[in-house]
């Protein structure tokens, strides 16, 4: 599994379609189904942050998972937002541990982290 992280609008989707060659129909957007690639993982985490680590087995069966970096900036006032950001970060840590490759996209340019 390839994990792709990066800021919103940094170019993750372009990387999936243009560099990895995925057709748009093969990319699930914030929904878990049987398509090989997934983007906007952070939105799935938002539904149930407390139990998101339970998604690990299903996510690891994907070919590519992309997630927005959401942990920079000021820690939110709302507990729910804080919980979501932390859950997203921890899930990405867990995914990165088992991923074959981890890429971070900045200005459309991938940097290989693993």
């Amino acid at each position, binding site marked *: 599994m390839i994990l792709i992280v990066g*800021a*919103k*609008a*940094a*170019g993750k989707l*372009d990387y999936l379609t243009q560099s990895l060659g995925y057709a748009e129909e093969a990319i699930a957007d914030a929904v878990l189904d049987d398509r090989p690639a997934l983007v906007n993982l*952070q939105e799935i985490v938002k539904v149930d942050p407390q139990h998101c680590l339970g998604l690990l087995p299903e996510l690891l069966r994907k070919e590519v998972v992309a997630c*927005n*970096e*959401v*942990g*920079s*900036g*000021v820690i*939110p006032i709302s507990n729910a*937002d804080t919980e*979501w*950001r932390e859950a*997203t970060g921890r899930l990405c840590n867990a995914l990165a541990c088992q991923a074959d490759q981890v890429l971070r996209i*900045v*200005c*459309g*340019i991938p*940097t290989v982290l693993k």
Partner: protein
Amino acid sequence: MMRFLLTGGSACGKSSYAEKLARRLPAPHYYLAAMQPFGEESLARIARHQKQRAGMGFQTIERYTDIVGVDLPERGTLLLECLCNLTANELYDEAGAGQQALAAILRGVARLEAQCEHIVVVTNDVGSDGAEYDNMVLEYIDVLGELNRRLAAQYDHVYELCCGLPCVLKGELW
């Protein structure tokens, strides 16, 4: 011609690095300042940037929108500071291009490039905080993100600054 794009979060040292980088490239040195002097925070930032580059020999051009209309007197090195202000101005200022902001900025940058030997463009990473925004801000993040991707794809050197230190995303350290 060499084209540089510098990105990073707030206060990561982009501006200061960009000034030093531009100064190492051939004169004359132009500084295109896009931040509008509205409010205490911008005035303080503008004053800090002016102090930072005092005596460095930059000719400052203040231009908040419609940069396609900027004429550089001679061919030299241009520092554009910064895409994030320019994008906000074009999107939301009365004099701005509104929905055509992306095209207006790309056209303007291309015309500036045609008028100088080297260009250093400063931008910002604004999409990593996970905060919930209204559609107006989401549009801003999308336009700035696309500008960043478009310029980065064309430019020779792209650096992400962290603690004042450049991390090379593309090209090489200069």
